[in-house]
């Protein structure tokens, strides 16, 4: 399916175009029908008042009917030509009509007595008329004589006007309104097109600025002038926020690569120095062996550092998939301690176990837990004051498994504990470059804790004790 790329300009133009068209059309209809109704009302009013006057001239006296209205018409040359009127005697069925009708007859219609009704009709096959029909009693001429109702002759009187002029005027009005409507529609369309196009210029300019941005300036925020459209400010602010976040991520990546390179520089310098020194003169095979052994140790340290760096990068990148299996935390602690036991002996550091009576067993990622625990124990053994004791304690609190690994320090602890979790943070008394420590051990622990849904913090009550506390919640 072809992807749709809706154009804002087209949508706005189409939307506003249809709206304007409908509004203009509605306006035309309102004006037209108002005028037409006005015309009709005017004709009807005229017909009604004229008809009332004329039926008053339909008189009777002693059984005779006098059509005074007709005499008036005949006496007026203008009316004799234009006036269309006809009266039917209901009794005899005969009718009289104005001269203008000639051989034609008006339609015969009426309502209740003295209740006029209106009707449109065509006479002579083509002439459109508007007519009023009324059933009336003839007016007795002798007002003093009482005539019984049944003796008064009844008539149907129909008066009509030609609507030719009205139709002509309405036709002209339709043409005028159509032209005005079309003109209005076109003018509004052009004006709206211009306004929309002008309004979209800043968006285009913004797009061009972004497209023209050089790689070296990607992180710089977009600056906007005071007259920049209000509606686009949110977009720019959102974009700047996004840029800031992207720049933050890029900086962290740059710093990580930078620091990672630094971490490898020192052991590289060590290898170079050992090798250079070995080559300064001829030496015994034992001497060469000892020096090669040293290079091998440095290489092992570098391997540990690289592994840690890669683990850290993978965890930071969110690429770690948990491999859940049954983990007995006490077993993991025991085997991790065994791994560091020799180092502890060399430093005359002992261990004090304060484990919870029951084993804590959970479905979790054994390898990540092993790295976490191993790093914490390694940290504790490496930086514990000589001849001191590392304490490894576990407890169960509020559906959390709590692991505490604490070691006495030879010197005071850094006050800002959060700094220990910064990658490569080392210029302190706790972490050092020697013995293959890369400065990311605790950072790695924190990443692992985040990955498995646990927390880790340095919670030392005593300034001379380094105490790492890991809280692992029970998963239901």
């Amino acid at each position, binding site marked *: 399916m072809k992807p749709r790329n809706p154009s804002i300009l087209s949508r706005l133009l189409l939307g506003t175009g249809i709206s304007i068209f409908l509004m203009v059309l509605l306006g035309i209809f309102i004006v037209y029908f108002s005028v037409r109704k006005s015309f009709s009302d005017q004709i009807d009013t005229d017909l009604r008042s004229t008809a009332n006057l004329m039926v008053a001239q339909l008189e009777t006296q002693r059984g005779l009917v006098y059509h005074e209205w007709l005499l008036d018409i005949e006496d007026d040359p203008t009316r004799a030509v234009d006036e269309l009127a006809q009266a039917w005697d209901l009794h005899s069925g005969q009718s009289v009509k104005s001269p203008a009708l000639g051989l034609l007859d008006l339609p015969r219609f009426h309502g209740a007595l003295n209740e006029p009704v209106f009707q449109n009709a065509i006479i002579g096959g083509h002439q459109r008329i508007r007519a009023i029909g009324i059933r009336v009693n003839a007016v007795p001429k002798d007002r003093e004589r009482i005539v019984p109702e049944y003796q008064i002759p009844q008539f149907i009187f129909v008066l009509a006007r030609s609507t030719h002029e009205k139709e002509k005027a309405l036709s002209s009005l339709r043409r005028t309104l159509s032209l005005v409507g079309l003109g209005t529609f076109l003018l509004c369309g052009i004006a709206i097109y211009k306004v929309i196009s002008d309004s979209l210029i800043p968006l285009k300019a913004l797009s061009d600025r972004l497209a023209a941005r050089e790689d070296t300036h990607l992180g710089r925020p977009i600056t906007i002038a005071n007259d920049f459209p209000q509606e686009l400010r949110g977009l720019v602010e959102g974009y700047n926020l996004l840029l800031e976040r992207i720049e933050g991520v890029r900086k962290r990546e740059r710093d990580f690569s*930078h620091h990672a*390179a*630094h*971490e490898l*520089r*020192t*052991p*590289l*310098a*060590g*290898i*170079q*120095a*050992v090798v*250079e*020194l070995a080559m*300064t003169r001829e030496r015994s095979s034992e001497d060469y062996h000892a020096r090669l052994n*040293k290079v091998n*140790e*440095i290489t092992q340290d570098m391997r540990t550092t690289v592994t840690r760096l890669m683990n850290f990068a993978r965890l930071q990148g969110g690429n770690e998939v948990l491999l859940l299996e049954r983990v007995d935390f006490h077993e993991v602690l025991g085997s991790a301690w065994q791994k560091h036991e020799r180092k502890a002996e060399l430093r005359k550091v002992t261990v004090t176990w304060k484990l919870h009576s029951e084993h804590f067993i959970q479905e979790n990622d054994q390898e990540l837990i092993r790295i976490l625990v191993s790093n914490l124990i390694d940290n504790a053994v490496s930086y514990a004051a000589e001849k001191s004791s590392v304490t490894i304690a576990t407890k169960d609190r509020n559906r959390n498994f709590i692991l505490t690994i604490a070691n006495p320090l030879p*010197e005071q602890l850094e006050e800002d504990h959060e700094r220990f979790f910064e990658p490569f943070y*080392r*210029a*302190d*008394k*706790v*972490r*050092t*470059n*020697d*013995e293959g420590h890369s400065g990311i051990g605790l950072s790695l622990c924190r990443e692992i804790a985040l990955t498995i849904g646990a927390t880790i913090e340095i919670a030392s009550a005593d300034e001379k004790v380094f105490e790492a506390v890991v809280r692992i919640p029970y998963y239901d």
Partner: protein
Amino acid sequence: MRILLVEDYSPLRESITEHLKDSGYAVDATANGAEGFEFATRSKYDAIVLDLMVPGKDGFKILTDLRAKGDQTPIIITSALDSMENRVEGLNAGADDYLIKPFALPELIARIQAQTRKSYGKKAAAIEVGDLKVDLNRRRVTRGEREIVLTKREYGLLEYLAYRKGEIVSREEIWEHVYQDAAGGSSNAVDVYVSYLRKKLNEGDEPNLLHTRRGQGYFLDPHEAA
């Protein structure tokens, strides 16, 4: 010449120490910044080789604190921090040189020599005392056409006296700058080393260049009467 080395990475620290000692330098080495600062304030060194990221006391702090105390010992920073900002920061803090890891040991030695020459006001790579010539770069000593073969300690002694040509250098100073390690020792041994060196410098009827000022010390001078 006596060098203080502050470096926490043990393989590097041990190799530099060994190489400096092989080159005739007396070396005090430590992995701890606070201890390094204590050494620097307690003893007089001809140069300090200082790593920036060391436990105990940050390298920058050591540097600024020493300069604040008026200590003008040449300080060469060795660091993995290679950015221009780091180098500028180090030099602005009072370092005399900045060497980025990894580096070649001969380069470190050359830079130490350059800094010590500068601190003793010697710009040339060789010091001449009469017909005696001490080539500081090649660590070669000649008198006239004759090449004098010296041990590391003898060369160290001659180099130190050459740097201070014409000055009386006390037995204690010689001990401190040439022989004494952090472990300590006795300055009485200086007389023995001086007599060994004198024998090698003066052959046949060549005029004596290494003189003794009784109760004060030793000095190199081509004109002084024996």
